[in-house]
């Protein structure tokens, strides 16, 4: 790979992508925060009994880690199975990628082993998950009817990223610790250094290129759901709690034999 191409792919593209991502991300979040209304209602909470911050956090955690609302769907198990395999696979893969820039107190051999087994399992899980979700989108008529170009774009990108990632982890097994890792660290530390990247395999280069294109796309498409739910008032704002009264004043009504009202106020 020549130096110009390497500079474009490994310096220009990453920084442009991150810049686009940040600007888009901040713009989206600002647009949510600036929408203050709740269709004239005090609260729009939808989950029963969410009166405290704790109950909100608990509910959100159940949504993120258990997808707990989805099992309620009878007759359509593919969504929850696909979603769990895919999302957990992606999360563990991303943790693995993070380990390339965060120095770990483990030996290189151990790191490589974890990358192979855990990274490989995570990648396979994500791969199976996205295949299930993609098949569901194409096969189930009612879901196909609500699918558009952006859905197919996101799925294709993710599928390509997962396949390329898995190819590296399971088949090519490149020496990422002395190639990708130093470069990625240099990018994060704002002192880009691409010397270690000129010899990486095309698979790695394409994986990285697609990854940054995808990162730049995140704020503009449905992938923004990774943060959007945190701003959704139906599940992040507490419900309005009714004040129950048990005051004796409420029970002052006495009825005498003639059937006259005999409350304090009526006598005045």
């Amino acid at each position: 790979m020549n130096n110009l191409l390497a500079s474009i792919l490994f310096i220009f593209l990453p920084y442009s992508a991150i810049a686009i991502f940040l600007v888009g991300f901040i713009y989206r979040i600002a647009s949510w925060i600036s929408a203050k209304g709740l269709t004239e209602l005090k609260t729009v909470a939808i989950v029963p009994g969410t009166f405290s911050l704790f109950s909100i956090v608990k509910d959100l955690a159940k949504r993120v880690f258990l997808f707990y609302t989805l099992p309620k769907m009878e007759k359509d198990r593919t969504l929850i199975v696909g979603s769990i395999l895919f999302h957990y696979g992606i999360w563990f893969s991303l943790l693995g990628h993070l380990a390339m820039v965060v120095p770990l107190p483990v030996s290189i051999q151990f790191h490589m082993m974890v990358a192979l087994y855990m990274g490989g399992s995570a990648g396979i899980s994500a791969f199976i998950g996205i295949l299930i979700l993609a098949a569901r989108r194409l096969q189930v008529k009612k879901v196909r009817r609500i699918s558009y170009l952006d859905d197919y774009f996101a799925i294709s990108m993710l599928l390509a990223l997962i396949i390329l990632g898995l190819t590296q982890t399971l088949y090519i097994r490149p020496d990422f610790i002395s190639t990708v890792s130093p470069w990625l660290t240099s990018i994060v530390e704002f002192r880009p250094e691409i010397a270690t990247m000129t010899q990486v395999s095309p698979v790695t280069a394409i994986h990285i290129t697609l990854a940054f294109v995808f990162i730049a796309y995140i704020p503009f498409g449905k992938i923004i759901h990774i943060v959007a739910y945190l701003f959704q008032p139906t599940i992040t704002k507490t419900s309005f709690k009714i004040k129950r009264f048990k005051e004796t004043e409420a029970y002052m009504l006495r009825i005498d034999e003639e059937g006259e009202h005999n409350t304090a106020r009526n006598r005045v």
Partner: protein
Amino acid sequence: MNTIPHEIEFRKGDTSNFESLWADEKLVNALYDKVGHTQTPNQNQVDFFVENVKREVKRNRNVKLAIDACVHCGACLNACPTFLTTEDTYNSPVGRADLIRGLLKSTKLSGKIFKKAVGARELNNKSLEDVSTYYYQCLECRRCGEICPFGIDQADVTRTIRSVLYDMGKISRYTAVVIGNVERTGNNMALPPAALKSTIEFARDEILEEKGVKVIPKIDQPAYAMFIPPSADFFSNIETLKGYMLFFHSIGFDYTFTTKHAELANFGLFTDAKHLREIGNHVVNVALELGVKAVIAGECGHGWRAFKNYVIPELEKKGLSGLHVFHLVEDAIESAKIKLEPKNNDGPSYVYQDPCNYARGGDLIDEPRSVLSSVVSSYQNSPHSRERTWCCGGGGGLLSDELLPLRTEYAKLWYEDAISVGGTHVIRPCAICKAQLSHTLPRLNKKHDQALAYSGLMDLVYKAIVP
């Protein structure tokens, strides 16, 4: 088949033929006058619609997130009673929202380039007609929001879009008549004060006859609390009315009826926030005029949502409080203020079905159950219970005649649930549920050869109370 001559035929997969009848200009203008709204003249309808939708989406975070954050996973398709019974994509949460997303998309760059491929919809009178037809097929039951992993609640999108349609002069005749009635007379049924009084007296006499108890209800008099049931309880749900009256009497509760606002329902919630406030503020004002300290709500699901999330916060600002009658019944049972004999209700096989707006956001799930378990010997929860409850099929202001065949389809879900557990009597403490059941049960019972009956909860409290 026993149908009225002009009844619209239900077609599975395409419900575009169920268009609501629209209010005429005179009716709309009367509503505009009430809330001081003026229609922007001479503006292109399509432009007006898109502009106003954009403004409302920008203003309301729940709607903004609903439009922005959907990943089109289709979970709501399996949750929505209108989609499950009709299989028309536009008659589903995501499909309904896409009618709007599509119009907004067509004004954006991606929509201009990729057009239909990204779901962009051409802006014209036809696409606007689709919006009004399908937005008046939504039950606003919030079941989609409950199952959506991101909590996207189409009900509030529906409310917003209907509000924009209303500002253009388009509102279903049924909801417009109801809103007009309550704003003119203080109740949805336009019952005059004399009629309300005679109904209350009639109920009083029946209580004396059946229970041997002389209850003396106050009407428009000072009291500790003002009680507002849905006006249907003065008209068709007299057993429920008797339940409130005998209960309040039994605990010695100092309350008054009011003829000035004898209505818990608030159809402003379904269609337009200006009227939601107008109707809600009237409740607060009547309460202040009467000098009460609290306002008690009767059995009405959507009315409770409006009451809990608009009226009570307004009451609290004035130092008043608001409660549901079930809160009081629960307290009374707990402190043994009333004596109950559950055997009085023996006979039917009871199935409790939560009204949508009690269960989803109303936080009124355990209270009715705790009451119920004290007034009947046994009852079952419906297979889809609590926050998973099915809408009766008449929510969202869809109780009109022209939608009856559609509503009957919507009703299948809860009906089959009740039958499947051997129920002979469903309990739905909500005026809209009761009205919808009174319209659809004869048809469904005939079709399934069953004799399913229904009632509210206070009806059963009435029978169980031992004076």
